[in-house]
């Protein structure tokens, strides 16, 4: 893929950056088949779904607290309620998925968020959604089970929609990465959400 210029080389970077989390290397460079996955692959999928679940718990708790804070009204409150409802649905779907795959769903963390004023809360919401979208993108090529991939990717684009809307509301570009969104690995994401987790 080397030697490109401009847009094509940006794309090449995306290609080169993927698969960095693939610590066991068992999967080579192809994704899983139509259905069957090994026990090892399934346990990694469960780990990924639990990671997503933890992030969704954080988001859902954040929006619940924002709604309770009374900082918002009107159309902004309406959007926050819509986004919060999505995150709650993601939590439910992901927890159910882990459970039915035979795993133990990650625990709901105790959280704290700085809720000073409407502007800082919207900025934090935008940060969290952009991070969430990058987190899903970082896992997409690690998921072996096609059905779980399909679900994760359908959540990924919704996080992207949230991020875009919140970016616009806070005066930022809807597409801060340009034409190609950047992924983030677990190692990049988890330290950024740590400040919001009490236990």
């Amino acid at each position, binding site marked *: 893929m080397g030697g490109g210029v401009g847009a094509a080389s940006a794309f090449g970077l995306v290609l080169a950056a993927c698969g960095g989390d693939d610590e066991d290397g068992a999967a080579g460079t192809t994704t899983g088949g139509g259905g069957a996955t090994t026990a090892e692959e399934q346990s990694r999928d469960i780990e990924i779904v639990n990671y997503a679940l933890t992030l969704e718990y954080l988001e859902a708790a954040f929006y619940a607290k924002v709604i309770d804070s009374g900082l918002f009204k009107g159309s902004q409150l309406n959007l926050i309620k819509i986004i919060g409802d*999505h995150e709650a649905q993601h939590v439910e779907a992901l927890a159910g998925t882990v459970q039915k795959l035979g795993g133990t769903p990650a625990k709901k963390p105790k959280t704290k968020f700085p809720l000073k004023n409407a502007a800082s809360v919207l900025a934090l919401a935008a940060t969290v959604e952009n991070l969430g979208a990058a987190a899903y993108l970082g896992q997409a090529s690690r998921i072996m089970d096609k059905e779980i991939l399909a679900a994760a990717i359908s959540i990924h684009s919704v996080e992207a929609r949230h991020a875009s809307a919140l970016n616009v509301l806070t005066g930022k570009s809807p597409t801060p990465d340009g034409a*190609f969104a950047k992924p983030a690995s677990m190692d990049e994401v988890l330290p950024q959400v740590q400040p919001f987790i009490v236990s």
Partner: protein
Amino acid sequence: MSDVKTTAPELAAAEIEEISRSAFILKGALATGAVYGTWAVSPFVRQALAQELIPGGGEGDVGILNFALTLEYLEATFYERAMKLSLSGDVMQLAELFGKHESEHVAALKKTINDLGGKPVPAPKVAFPMKNEAQFLKLAQTLEDTGVGAYNGAAPLIQSKEVLAAAGSIVQIEARHAAAIRLQTGANPAPAAFDEALKPDAVLDAVKPFVKG
């Protein structure tokens, strides 16, 4: 956790019907959301890998990339034509930015298809019924939402991890476009908790009105 036993007979039945165990599990888990699962992935994967999505576009990952390329050509041309309309400042800015992104997607997809030893399909001839900003926004919303559904639907069909990661980085941009366009019309930027996965056939039907040969 306690319902593992009670669901087991249903799982066994599902396997007989050639639905993968996890497919059944996930649809069960997402049933409350009632938005995912417009089509079963696994049977379709087998079907799609054995046929061309776009005539002359090749099979497998190259075929999927050519399918995506066709959509990106459409979007890039759409935004290019929109430059001739009289659009308000904010909308013009978005149209310009998004058109640039779509052109970059076109270039990247062509390069990837070439690198994989395939042949990029030519750009289709297109026509868009738009004379004003309202018509532009309505069409932009349709095209971007369709683009999201198209990539989401194609993702599980992709074999190469690298191509999947790249497609993911593009679909996220399409979703961001869709939300920003929707805000301009006062529509809900994220109309559902789970974006729909569109079958390639459904995507081609959706864009057919704009393709003129």
